[in-house]
């Protein structure tokens, strides 16, 4: 379909503004813009059609099953959108004085309390904008903590199953990554930890259950190893959907946790965001929390920014408030029964795993938690059919593909997270499609290479996109910003986390 710029015509307008009879504004000529930006020019009817059509070329949870592993693509309750749009929230200026924002501050305070209880930890900062910013914030807290104690440590342990944000955050925090292997049962290799953890160790970043969908059975020992070395434990909360009300990170020994409000607590993913990445910490890290948090004095709620040892601010204001409204509404729908959410997520995952295990290889043969990873390695070896081919054919069956090629430790990985909101019929239909595809891989592997055939476009040439870098509309000409050719990602790069 056409780009919005290709539908633009000079002089067409959609905007309307109030008019006041005021003299024309004066401004220094040297600062005046010379040529206007070529923004699209359309009337309202064509704008509505353009974006309506775009939306029909996109697949969301509202469209169907979206088992994108590690992303918790659950149903987004619509009441959350209703309450987030309340004028008292939507039209509230963040610089409003506290007296004029008591309801918003109370909501944030209540959310802090709920998250602390779920985490089993003591204090919460809602400020981080997403999980990865939560990670970085957590690492900054650790640095502040060690600096405050006069210790200089540099090494952060990252398991080989970890999400890419974990090592990236370590670098941004000015620390060094130390890799750790996964043992044959899918747990972190304890011997390796015992050998490597020392007084230079800042801590460990762990996703538990891991990105393999497995709860680390050695978690108590892991905790001992790090805490005995004076180091700290960071809990990547991306997989919290597995354990709410069942096991709390704080009780597992973690000192900092981030939540992904857009995963576990139903903030819609918005085509890539927004998210929310609050962190909860043990009391020994509380003095370093970003400012401001929200405090309660009797019936009154206020900003709390008197933290002399704070690492400072990690984003504007108190955080993505609209996300808090949605997640708070969601959490109030479950209340103390939040456990049902996680139990159902884990039940759905194990059922789907049971249905798939005959057709796909299971690298770690255990019950899973809320997600699991199977491998298309055998299909590739025997029929030349890759995880990517399976993913693309799933599109033709009407499903969103799972995450593929992640975690990196599993070759030809298909990482499947059904979430708790799916019906059994949906899981069955997906399992049937996966079985069909496994059969097709035997019968007609070549056909799979042409998938998808039912989508609005066929397989897209990512190599070309990286070589001939066209990242904006060119109006008359299409400039290639690539300069020298860029290294394209390989076809088996992670897709979906």
């Amino acid at each position, binding site marked *: 379909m056409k*780009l919005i710029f290709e539908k633009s015509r000079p002089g067409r307008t*959609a*905007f309307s503004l109030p008019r006041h009879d005021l003299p*024309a*504004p004066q401004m*220094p000529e040297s600062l005046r*813009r010379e040529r*206007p930006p*070529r*923004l699209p020019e359309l009337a309202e009817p064509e704008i509505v059609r353009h974006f309506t059509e775009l939306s029909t070329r996109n697949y969301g*949870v*509202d*469209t169907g099953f*979206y088992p994108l592993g590690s992303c918790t693509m659950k149903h987004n309750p619509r*009441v959350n959108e209703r*309450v987030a749009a309340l*004028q*008292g929230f939507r*039209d*509230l200026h963040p*610089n409003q004085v506290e007296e*004029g924002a008591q*309801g*918003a501050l*109370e909501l944030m305070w209540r959310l802090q309390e709920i998250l602390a209880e*779920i985490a089993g930890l003591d204090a919460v900062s809602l400020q981080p*904008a997403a*999980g990865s910013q939560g990670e970085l914030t957590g690492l900054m807290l650790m640095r502040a903590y060690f600096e405050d104690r006069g210790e200089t440590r540099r090494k952060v342990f990252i398991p080989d199953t970890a999400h*890419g944000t974990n090592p*990236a955050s370590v*670098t941004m925090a000015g620390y060094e990554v130390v890799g750790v292997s996964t043992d044959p049962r899918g747990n972190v290799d304890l011997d390796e930890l015992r050998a490597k953890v020392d007084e230079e160790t800042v801590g460990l970043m762990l996703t538990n259950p891991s990105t393999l969908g*497995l709860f680390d059975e050695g978690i108590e020992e892991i905790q001992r190893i790090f805490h005995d070395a004076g180091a700290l434990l960071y809990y990547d909360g991306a997989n919290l959907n597995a354990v709410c*009300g069942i*096991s709390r990170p704080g009780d597992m020994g973690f000192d900092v946790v981030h939540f992904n409000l857009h995963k576990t607590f139903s903030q*819609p993913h918005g*085509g*890539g*965001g*927004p998210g929310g990445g609050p962190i909860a910490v043990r009391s020994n890290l509380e003095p370093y929390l970003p400012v401001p948090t929200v405090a309660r004095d009797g019936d009154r709620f206020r900003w709390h920014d008197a933290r002399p040892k704070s690492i400072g601010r990690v984003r*504007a204001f108190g955080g993505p408030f609209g*996300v808090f*409204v949605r997640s*708070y509404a969601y959490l*109030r729908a*479950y*209340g*103390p029964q*939040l456990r049902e959410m996680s139990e159902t997520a884990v039940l*759905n995952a194990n059922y789907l795993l049971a249905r798939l295990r005959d057709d796909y290889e299971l690298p770690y043969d*255990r*019950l899973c938690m809320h997600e699991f990873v199977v491998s298309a390695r055998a299909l590739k070896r025997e029929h030349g059919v890759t995880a990517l081919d399976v993913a*693309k054919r799933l*599109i033709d069956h009407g499903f969103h593909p799972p995450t593929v090629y992640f975690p990196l430790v599993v070759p030809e990985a298909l990482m499947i997270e059904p979430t708790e909101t799916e019906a059994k019929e949906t899981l069955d239909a997906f399992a049937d499609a996966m079985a069909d595809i496994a059969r097709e891989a035997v019968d007609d592997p070549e056909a799979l290479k042409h998938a998808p055939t039912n989508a609005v476009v*066929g397989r897209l040439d990512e190599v*070309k996109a*990286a070589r001939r870098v*066209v*990242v904006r509309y060119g109006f008359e000409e299409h400039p290639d*910003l690539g300069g020298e050719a860029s290294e394209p990602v390989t076809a088996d790069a*992670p897709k979906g986390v």
Partner: protein
Amino acid sequence: MSAARYLSLTAADREEMLAAIGVEQVTGLFEQVPRGVRLGRELDLEPALSEQEIVDHLSALAGRNVGTERELSFLGGGIYDHYVPAIVDMVLSRGELLTAYTPYQPEVSQGVLQAIFEYQTVICELTGMDVSNASGYDGTTVAADAAFIARHATGRTKVVLAETLNPQARQVVKTYAPGFGLEVVEVPHDGGVIDPDRLAAASVGAAAVFFQQPNFFGCLEPAPELASAAAEAGALPVAHVDPLSLGLLEAPGNYGAAIAIGEGQGAGNHMSFGGPHYGFLAARADLIRRMPGRIVGETTDVQGRRGYVLTLQTREQHIRREKATSNITTNQTLLALGGLVYLSWLGPQGLRELGETCMGLVQYARHRLGHPLAFPDQATFKEIAIRVGRPARDVIAAARERGVNPGYALGRDYEGMDDVLLVCVTEKRSPGDIDRLAEVLEDVA
């Protein structure tokens, strides 16, 4: 009561499924969780609410806030009460966009991908830069992103921040700087704007120099001269701009900025007590491989049809891990999409008229308000700083009792400015509203 309303399994389903798995009860699935770390009790949370109770409870909370729909507000200072047209909300409520995630599978994500490509184009057009990402968390974190780019592009270890740059953006840069191995130097203002010579002196050896146009006081900086001062010192000039000023004010790309960043909220997002919004970041072509975050590129499918994909992913954490240009993954796509819809609604003509309206109103306020200007020599865009003769906090409290929120107390961020009020006018305020403000300020200050 449970939230079964969000769960699709019936009791019969559960039994069949457990049987298929081969465990007797759901608890059997959790054997892998060591007993020592199991919770063993219900979460200590308030009782579950029905949908209607959720709406009641949150409506009550919302009712304890005073938004700009309930008082005549002149608050600005980085977040602005611009009108968000209805089509923005309509587009963002389309489930296929709202409930999708990052477009890793382009064949089923052309909607979001094309929208991002269009967004990138709009941001490039606005800023006069070559390439835009989509998107940063907000107008403060993109400053940290720009510092990270500059650190690696120049190899230098210092960044210079104009004191007139948004205080929160400065704070965020300072929070991130130690991890990046950067020292932060701030340059004070002279009479409300930055002196190019003073900036030039500070820029020596710097990786990047940040300034804001219009600046935090609303004043128009001599931006071209600031950019030159930075560039001459070999530093990357980073301009933090108000997107809605760019119909009237020159685009940073046209006066030599290497990176343009800003807070997108005013262009298409509701204020929502501070978020979620989007931060934009656009740069010169030579910096493209150092940019953080998502970038969408054009390509073709197997049949030669045009299509869009995430591109230059070798910059990103999921490929490059500890060597990535950033750790960002979840971003602000939906809000950026709101920006795209808004800017399409506004168009070039609307953008210019909107700027003229804001400047016209601020000019009116300048003459209408009886109080002395803090920076009488500077032209401003949609804000003015006035001296109210007593603590601005007190003036705000007194004026709010009369239904007017007169602005932001600059003393919250700047020493020696306790009596300075930053008054903001957008197109949602009228000359009559300014008259009312003048009246109230006469009474209380």
